[in-house]
């Protein structure tokens, strides 16, 4: 039954645009497109997050991917297909440059989180500082072509984006599944538990860590490109820096970091929640919606530490199939410090 879950879900989602929703249709599609894109990004984050590599700087990869594509299109009219490819390569290089010394010098735990957080802030501040190119903190809009164009990846009809985002999300699940079934998973779990022990049985710690970081970052950049093409506007505060990085981690941890559909459940919940609060409060009581959102996040984290899928999965199936090898607190040692002093 579980094997059929993803195909059934995908089929149901594929039918969604055909359901008559009267005037609500455009809006529902808009929310669902966002959920699919952020699920994909969350899935990319969880590729490394589930192995104890908790990155707080995925905003850097997201922002680099989105900005590179948009700027290449606006200034040199490079198609997003080409610009996106360049952006993904740039992001992969950035990830490798960060991951190499982190793996080499055993920067783990809190230290890894703070280094990646610094990377995210560097990208955000660079975007703001280079305001002649990037529009600074005001952001920049994608130059419109005026008609539907596959070359420019711009469409007036939301359904095109919807099916694109659905395909992207399914591709992300496929990558997650492949990693889950591979040797790399066992190797990464061993590394996450004890690097020295893993190295002693012949696992190339540095190589595996860099590979999973680059994969995660590259997919995040793809998500950034998709988001930028859909919204047609990029802004350093929504696509880079701590805010968005934390939102990604929140969605994943809330849904369940160790399961295939966890990031999707988390993204759906957080986006639906913030959209609902936004509508409920509208233009009155500015800030109230986000206040409740923040409050609920704290409550969820305290009362559902294993995430929704993690907590519910244990009850439904009598034990998770995609589970952490050990309880979470053993995966990332509490007192993980840098290299031995």
């Amino acid at each position, binding site marked *: 039954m579980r094997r059929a879950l993803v195909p059934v879900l995908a089929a149901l989602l594929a039918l969604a645009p055909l359901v008559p929703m009267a005037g609500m249709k455009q809006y529902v599609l808009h929310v669902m497109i966002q959920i699919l894109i952020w699920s994909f990004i969350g899935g990319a984050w969880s590729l490394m997050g589930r192995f104890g590599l908790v990155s707080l700087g995925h905003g850097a990869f997201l922002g680099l991917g989105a900005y590179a594509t948009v700027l290449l299109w606006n200034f040199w009219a490079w198609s997003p297909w080409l610009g996106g490819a360049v952006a993904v390569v740039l992001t992969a290089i950035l990830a490798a440059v960060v991951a190499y010394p982190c793996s080499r010098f055993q*920067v783990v735990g809190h230290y890894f989180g703070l280094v990646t957080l610094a990377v995210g802030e560097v990208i955000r501040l660079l975007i703001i500082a280079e305001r002649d190119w990037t529009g600074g903190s005001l952001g920049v809009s994608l130059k419109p072509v005026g008609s539907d164009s596959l070359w420019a990846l711009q469409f007036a009809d939301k359904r095109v984006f919807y099916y694109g985002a659905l395909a992207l999300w399914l591709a992300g699940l496929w990558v997650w599944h492949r990693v889950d079934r591979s040797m790399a998973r066992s190797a990464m779990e061993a590394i996450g538990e004890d690097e020295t022990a893993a190295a002693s049985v012949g696992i190339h710690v540095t190589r595996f860590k860099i590979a999973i970081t680059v994969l995660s970052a590259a997919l995040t950049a793809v998500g950034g490109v998709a988001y930028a093409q859909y919204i047609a506007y990029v802004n350093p505060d929504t696509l880079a820096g701590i805010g968005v990085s934390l939102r990604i981690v929140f969605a994943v941890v809330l849904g369940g970091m160790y399961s295939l559909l966890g990031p999707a459940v988390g993204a759906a919940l957080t986006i639906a929640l913030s959209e609902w609060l936004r509508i409920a409060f509208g233009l009155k009581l500015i800030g109230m919606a986000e206040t409740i959102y923040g409050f609920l996040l704290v409550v969820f984290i305290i009362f559902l530490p294993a995430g929704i899928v993690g907590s519910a999965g244990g009850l439904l199936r009598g034990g998770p199939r995609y589970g952490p090898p050990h309880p979470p607190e053993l995966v990332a040692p509490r007192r993980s410090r840098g290299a031995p002093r």
Partner: protein
Amino acid sequence: MIDPIFLAEAAVNGILLGGVLALLALGLNLIFGVIDIVWIAYVDLVMLCMYLVYFLVQVYGWPVWAGGLAAVALGAALGIAVHLLIISPILGSAPINQLLATGGLLFFLQSFATFLWTTDHRSVRLSLPSYDLGGIFLPLTRVIPFAISILALVALYLFLTRTFVGTAIRAVSQDREAMGLMGANPHRIYLVTSAVGGLMAGLAGALLIFLYSVHPFFGGQLGPLTFMICVLGGLGNMVGAFVASFIMSEIISIAGVLWSTEMGYVIAFVVFIVMIFVRPGGILARRG
């Protein structure tokens, strides 16, 4: 070419800013070192204390010292509240959950401040004289916060080294299991640590309101920098954090004059990233 006198003034400003940054960094570092949790929302507590001083002094006409004391009290109360309401229920959870719980607090505080006080920038301006030291402009509004910071840091040092509770706090940061075996109650120590950490945040807020204007997203301005300073100095290493505060504030101040404010921060963060690879244990750690 930039006049060397501007660079000298930037260097002096860097030192003056470094004092207040050290206050923030040492407060966070204390919590970091003892409870082993990163309070992502630490600088947002500072933001609340800044608002308190603003309202008491600017709106209700309290004297400056009374507003400052109220902010210190609020800071300590917030530290205790955060520990009791958020941290202590999840002390046994995975580190990422602990981090995210305070991350949620960050969203909560920022939006709640927006809701209550809108996004207007507010500041308290004092008209105090400035001194002219051979062309270097030395405003008293910056010198006094610096002096108070240094005094507070000395007091913290004496508290940690000369009192029984301070010694217990340092002992827990070295080995919490052993401390439990010695009959000390770690939870009480955590509570005291959170209160002291919050108190430092309150004092920093009371000083920062005279240097910067406050707005709901103030935490995003100094927050990341404060984490970097803690790591750069070495987690739990107080002297290291103190030195690191001045290194970072000098970089920001001087690069800010040479290029732009944003580039100052970019260079400071890049220095941080490089340093963590060169000296993962902190700048003052002995290589072993």
